[in-house]
């Protein structure tokens, strides 16, 4: 990429074989800058407007003369600064207040520099009336550089291009809500409290393992077939497992969810789901 092309406006571009001029003013090339920095008023207007305020202008003046920021010749800088302020006034540029405040500050520093140093005050930064100005210039300069650094970082759309591929045919999926066990338990606590179940007799709670075993047994047996009683037990579970299963069977029988059938004494015992066992209208119908 060719830098000249970027800076020069196409129409006013000089012949490519010529040495690029420092400035083009109304299409006219300037190969040397006037020593007193005389620039036609229109050019100056643009020039001045590119300063980001009095600190920026001061930094420019210091840099232009290769001066040390830590040892600014205040008198000279003030003179030049006032020159620009006068130019701005002459051009009737909107002279922002900040520029005038800075002019006043410079004038004050200048006058303090001229005063003889009172005896007893050692030479040093504290005594230098320029210290605060230098601090501000340094601080601003840091962020001015930081701005350039940030600008130079790879930018999306300029240096970095993100990529994407066509997505496959998809339906938007709806996720099932997440629930924590804690929430479920709190819900149970609520409903039990409401029903005053904690004190109530029929929540003599069975061990949950019995309840679970009841569900499991119901999953195995049905109304059409007989299931041999002994197959409900898993010997590997040991005594405790057998007890749980037995309690579950007894509970199921008590709730008329299961019946035991034995043809003869010492014959195998079978279990099955009772078919239409005769029962009175149960509570469930009262509430449905």
């Amino acid at each position, binding site marked *: 990429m060719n830098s000249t092309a970027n800076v020069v406006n196409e129409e006013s571009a000089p012949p490519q074989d010529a040495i690029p001029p420092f400035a083009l003013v109304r299409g006219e090339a300037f190969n040397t800058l006037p020593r007193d920095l005389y620039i036609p008023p229109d050019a100056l207007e643009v020039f001045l407007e590119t300063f980001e305020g009095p600190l920026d202008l001061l930094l420019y003046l210091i840099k232009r003369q290769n001066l040390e920021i830590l040892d600014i010749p205040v008198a000279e800088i003030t003179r030049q600064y006032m020159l620009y302020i006068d130019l701005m006034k002459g051009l009737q540029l909107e002279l922002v207040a900040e520029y005038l405040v800075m002019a006043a500050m410079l004038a004050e520093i200048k006058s303090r520099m001229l005063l003889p140093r009172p005896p007893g005050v050692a030479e040093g930064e504290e005594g230098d009336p320029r210290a605060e100005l230098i601090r501000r210039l340094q601080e601003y300069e840091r962020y001015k550089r930081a701005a350039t650094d940030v600008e130079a970082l790879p930018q999306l759309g300029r240096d970095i*291009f993100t*990529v*994407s*591929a*066509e*997505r*496959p*045919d*998809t339906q*938007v*999926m*709806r*996720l*099932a*809500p997440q*629930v*924590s*066990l*804690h*929430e*479920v*338990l*709190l*819900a*149970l*606590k*609520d*409903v*039990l409290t*409401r*029903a005053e*179940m*904690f004190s109530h007799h029929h*929540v003599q*709670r069975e061990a*949950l*393992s019995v*309840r*679970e075993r*009841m*569900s499991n047994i*119901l*999953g195995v*047996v*049905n*109304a059409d077939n007989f299931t041999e009683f002994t197959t409900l037990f898993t010997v590997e579970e040991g005594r405790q497992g057998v007890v749980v299963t037995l309690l579950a069977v007894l509970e199921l029988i008590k*709730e*008329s*969810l299961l019946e035991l059938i034995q043809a003869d004494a010492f014959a195998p015992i079978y279990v099955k*789901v*009772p*078919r239409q*066992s005769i*029962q009175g209208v*149960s*509570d*469930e*119908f009262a*509430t*449905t």
Partner: protein
Amino acid sequence: MNSQQLKNIIEAALLAADHPLSVDQLAALFIAQSIEDEPPTRDELRQALAALQQECESRGIELKEVSSGYRFQVKQALAPWISRLWEERAPRYSRALLETLALIAYRQPITRAEIEDIRGVAVSSNIIKTLQEREWVRVLGHREVPGRPALYGTTREFLDFFSLKALGDLPTLAEISSLDDIPTQMHLNQSEINPMPDNNNSGNTNIVQLYPVTNDTGADTNEASAHG
């Protein structure tokens, strides 16, 4: 320009463009501004496209020619995973549903009427249906009384979801009665909407309360993430 670089530019261009690119459009990238001397021919472009197409065989995307040109697209076989990028979170479950689920878990096998009896209000069919669709609850059988009401119980999926080995791992009713009432979900939301990034400049302590920093909130959030 060697064929590798040509392929790379084509790959990058097709992925960077938000629409398919024709061979002509690809060719246009190499003309002008004389970045390189000889722009690739149409044949070279087509060869590069074919090579890219082949390299995709083992990858997650494929190079397709559609009417307006070439584009990369995600392989259809990966749709099950990729589609989750766009999934929506369903609204939270109601209190009634959670109570019903809890009663089924603790009192199974249980009929709907028995649930209603304990809860004191009717249980909507929707709740039972939702629980069955979620595969947390199933019909174990029917109570042999008039109407043969279904008996509900929980499933293996229910246990898996809540990381339980068996129902016996659920807390006892006595333990439940001593549960504290802090709704866990609130913490989660809170940490989700916490607008602060991790890099809080703690150096500037004089700025006062950008976001809640009380001990309470901190502890709650920790607890929440432990639950989640």
